[in-house]
């Protein structure tokens, strides 16, 4: 296997879908690609996001207040999916309420490559994995610092697209990652179980330093969400995307070996 350090790290850029942001996604996606993003993650708001810190909570609140619905999500996917591979992030209930098969067929038709559900545990995931295969979508599972080696291996084996490694105990947003020394064994366990599956680190990736630390832990990429949303305000501008992502993308360039 070629050294993972020899490759450029993936950079997943997040944006919450919000009815008032209609018509802006395409320009944001182009700016993200220009700045070095390799994937997009579109968040569908949920009223009770227990894994999220204050910034993403407030964004979800606003999007729900604005009457954002599933059609807004489908439209946003259609706007960006041809620019970068696009994943949908939401909590379990919005998918369930829509009907799992119907929801996945719809986002699949709109062009999504896969989806992630932060409150879907490995134990509850079998029907969701079957539905994702029927829809031809990748279901990305999440691992955490609390997962032991056996769980990390099981999560990596059942995950599709990539494995999302939560960087620390805590919610999304401000706060430090657990650090490369603590995270490296988890990344290694995932790679051993599934050498073909990249591991992307999320929660607390906000600048070049946190991205470099993710690379030191062995991660194949990072997810940037809160750092973008806290500067976006209600109506994000493409220039903001570039300003935040460019230094992170530079930190993800191949490590000289």
């Amino acid at each position, binding site marked *: 296997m070629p050294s993972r350090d020899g490759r450029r790290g993936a950079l997943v850029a997040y944006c919450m879908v919000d009815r008032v942001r209609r018509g802006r996604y395409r320009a944001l996606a182009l700016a993200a690609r220009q700045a070095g993003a390799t994937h997009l993650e579109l968040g569908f708001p949920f009223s009770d996001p227990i894994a999220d810190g204050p910034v993403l909570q407030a964004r979800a*609140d606003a999007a729900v207040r604005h009457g954002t619905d599933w059609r807004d999500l489908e439209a946003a996917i259609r706007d960006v999916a041809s620019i970068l591979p696009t994943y949908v992030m939401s909590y379990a*209930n919005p998918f369930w*309420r829509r009907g799992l098969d119907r929801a996945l067929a719809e986002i699949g038709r709109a062009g999504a490559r896969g989806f992630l559900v932060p409150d879907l545990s490995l*134990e509850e995931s079998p029907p969701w994995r079957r539905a994702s295969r029927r829809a031809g979508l990748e279901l990305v599972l999440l691992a955490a610092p*609390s997962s032991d080696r056996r769980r990390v291996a099981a999560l990596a084996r059942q995950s599709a697209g990539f494995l999302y490694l939560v960087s620390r*105990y805590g*919610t999304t947003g401000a706060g430090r990652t657990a650090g490369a020394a603590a995270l490296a064994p988890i990344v290694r366990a995932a790679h051993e179980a599934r050498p073909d599956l990249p591991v992307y680190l999320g929660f607390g990736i906000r600048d070049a330093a946190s991205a470099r630390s993710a690379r030191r832990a062995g991660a194949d990429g990072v997810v940037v969400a809160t750092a973008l949303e806290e500067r976006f305000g209600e109506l994000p501008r493409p220039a903001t995307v570039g300003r935040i992502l460019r230094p992170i993308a530079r930190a993800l360039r191949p490590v000289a070996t």
Partner: protein
Amino acid sequence: MPRRFGAYGGAYVPETLVPALSELERAWRAARRDPAFRRELAERARSFGGRPTPLHFAERLTARAGGAEIWLKREDLVHGGAHKFNNALGQGLLARRMGKPRLIAETGAGQHGVATAMIGAALGFATEVYMGEVDMERQRPNVLRMELLGARVRPVRTGQRTLKDAINEALRDWITNVRTTHYLLGSAVGPHPFPSMVADFQSVIGREILREARRRWGRPPHLAVACVGGGSNAIGTFHPMRRTSVELLGVEAGGPRGSTVGAASLTRGRPGILHGSYSYVLQDRSGEIADTQSISAGLDYAGVGPEHAYLRDAGRARYIAVHDEDALRAFRWLAEDEGILPALEPSHAIYAAVVEARRRPKRQRIVVTLSGRGDKDLEVVGRAVA
């Protein structure tokens, strides 16, 4: 212990919490088999909690209804003034067994917060209680009680600032501090093993009812009635009776007359995933959790325990909604006829019991779980009847 009740239940939680839930389940299974744990639980329930609680004949309320006999299971006499003690004690002893130095809890009416604060003091935990700002305002006496008992009350300012939002914040705290903290969840909701475990600790209510009924009447009551928010006092009443002949009636909060939602997830919601379990949930077409409305903070919740969802679908228990105005009427009946100030939560159940008594013959017996006392509600009631 079942992970699912029919289709309902499960554990829909972020991965960070999964190992902690497994640890909790293991600790609880081991404790149930440990005679020393069971002895300590029973002894503290007696000497600290005041158990067993009596079954009390509501003679004048029965005369007012003019039908079946109404009996009250006096959980309002438990230490702290509500059934919440039963579960807080059990989980507190478990947390000590697991070596966790810190307890967190959510509270709506404040009764679970008070119970957790009492247990935290008695067993020497650092205790923090999340409570919505709206609830802190309407249940002010309980905020003061928690603080006097040494707990820190953390105001929750997100969402509707009520029970659901307090649970969100407690879950976020647990995700952050799971290595040192036990989340002492107060209702039969949340991810597995909480619904089974809380039902287990609360089942002392139903077991005592059946025991005293057998002693007094030589048979179980005809009907058991309990209020349902998350559903812990109701499941504690119903669970031991589920394989008996007793009819089971759960009473949800209908909100003010004319309200389309109230807080009645079983009668007006549909299946969904909230706070880690699959159950009935009040929600909109996009799956966003609905705002709720009830005069009683303890019932003001958009979800309900998964075992109730199962009992409902199986037809084993019936669930109805009672409006704020009728709960207030029942509050006054119990005060004026029986000399008891009930909490607003069981006032919903009292109203339903009177309606049921009216249409039943005098030889039948109805047991209502009087889950808590009403001192905390005096301001709210005073304003409502003024």
